[in-house]
């Protein structure tokens, strides 16, 4: 291999994925960015350049501002909760035994059922006047709750459902990370007489950090882009208490068919995500050494 061609090697490795991403993701994204400067009437098939008008409108749109605040709150709670619970579960079931195998599969179950169907099930469970959850509360002598139908409980109820759906999924990925930690390292720590708690923080966690970073980033992005539970369970209500930016993207694109405005909202969302992810990468102090 000559020196010249050696420079090409890394590009050859990434080429297939980059071509695919370019064609199926990056080009459509660029198209979306472009449309955010237009007034698009997709069915009439007209596009009128309007400069920054969409962006000016969205910062003044109280629904969007509320949705942005909701989105930040939602993520600030859901993502840490999911990651911590998933990590706890992963450590708990990272062992042998038939019983543990069964539990592991059970914890994984919510991740496999379709998000649409899971949302329908939870909407029915949460129904205030004849849902199963209030049935349980009343049966044990507790007062019935309003769940998704009141401004104060709607967001916590949504968060509860989303956490339930996601924990098992991230647990499995963290299990893979745990499996990748060499046993010799753990055994060395045992020989050194480290307590289980110390072993976890001093040995397991640092070695798990590449997987953990992935889980934190991926979970953040997925939660920012989540809207099916909102769509099925609350439609953003009551009074926009559960409206997330992604739901507003959907609503503007496919209810109001304002593709340009939806593109502008999603561009704003992209910025929020990018900031969150870069903060995470800095905060978790994982260097991107190449």
């Amino acid at each position, binding site marked *: 291999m000559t020196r010249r061609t050696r420079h090409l090697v890394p590009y050859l490795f990434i080429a297939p*994925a980059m071509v695919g991403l370019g064609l*199926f993701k990056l080009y*459509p994204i660029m198209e979306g960015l472009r449309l955010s400067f237009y007034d698009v009437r997709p069915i009439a098939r007209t596009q009128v350049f309007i400069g920054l008008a969409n962006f000016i409108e969205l910062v003044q749109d109280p629904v969007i501002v509320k949705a942005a605040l909701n989105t930040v709150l939602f993520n600030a709670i859901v993502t840490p909760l999911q990651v911590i619970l998933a990590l706890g579960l992963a450590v708990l079931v990272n062992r042998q035994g038939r019983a543990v195998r069964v539990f592991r599969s059970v914890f994984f*179950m919510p991740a*496999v059922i379709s998000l*649409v169907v899971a949302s329908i099930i939870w909407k029915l469970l949460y129904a205030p006047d004849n849902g199963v959850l209030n049935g349980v509360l009343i049966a044990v002598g507790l007062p019935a709750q309003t769940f998704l139908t009141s401004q104060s409980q709607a967001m916590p109820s949504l968060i509860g459902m989303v956490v339930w759906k996601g924990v098992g999924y991230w647990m499995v990925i963290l299990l893979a990370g745990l499996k990748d930690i060499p046993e010799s390292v753990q055994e060395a720590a045992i020989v050194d007489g480290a307590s289980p708690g110390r*072993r*976890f923080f001093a040995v397991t966690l640092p070695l798990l950090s590449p997987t953990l970073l992935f889980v934190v980033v991926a979970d953040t992005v997925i939660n920012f882009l989540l809207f099916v539970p909102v769509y099925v369970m609350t439609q953003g209500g009551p009074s926009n208490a559960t409206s997330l930016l992604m739901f507003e993207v959907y609503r503007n694109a496919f209810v109001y068919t304002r593709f340009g405005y939806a593109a502008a909202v999603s561009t704003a969302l992209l910025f929020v995500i990018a900031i969150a992810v870069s903060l995470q990468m800095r905060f978790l102090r994982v260097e991107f050494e*190449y």
Partner: protein
Amino acid sequence: MEPIRRTPDFGHTMRRSLFYAALVLIALVSVVPLLWALTSSLRPDDEIFRYTTRLSWKTLLPIGGTIHNFREILFEDRFARFFGNSLLVAGATILLGLLVNSLAAFGFARFTFPGQRVLFGFVLVTFMVPFEVIVLPLYLVVRSLGWLDTYRALIIPAVPDAFSIFLIRQFMAKLPRDMFEAGRVDGASWWDLYWRVALPNVKPALITASLLLFLRQWDAFFWPLVATSSLELTVIQVALTKYMTEFVTYWGRLLAGSMLATLPIVAAFFLLQRYFVQSVTSSGIKG
């Protein structure tokens, strides 16, 4: 001797029972909503919502149960075909996706090259944009390739995947440097290093990436609806919406179908999970 031996045994038993109590509690939370769906799928339609208001043992036990819903789905609808379509699409996505994305991950993890940061930034950006925004341009791309209403339309756009690249890169980057340098000294090509050194050492990442790709395709709904129209290409989640018709929702069949789309996957996970877990117990409480 006796008391000394009993004390650790007692503590051990305590810890063990606490451990299992915790597991059972979490398992209940995970499974009860699905259990309600499962028992409902075993009821006739006019029974499903009968026992929600006033809770009784009937809420969770399908008394006078019927397998009518399951029979209806398995024998009268082309459920096997739809299930098979989803399996084919997910399977093909995994195989192609692992290859394409692990190649890119290797490129990003083991080389330093001009433009690397920018290109990796591009990769990350592609998973931060909602699908709903790119669906129309993507549809136009797929149409111009002549792929509408083919398996290719369902598979190929999902193959290059930032999540998988990122995940596999994370695992490859932490492999020890000398592992590769030894190979270079022996005159191994970059392809050999990728295929014989890197890949075998990141199997957990590959398996996890497969799972990511699989679940994404298994839950895929909107894109298949947009990109295909023939019945032969219907995937499972689209098929399920058939039970929510304009006027009537066939709850029993909808829930039975969802269970049929869920349980085989959980069963497969049960059988394959040894790949996710350490082979020898070496951390925490011994079980």
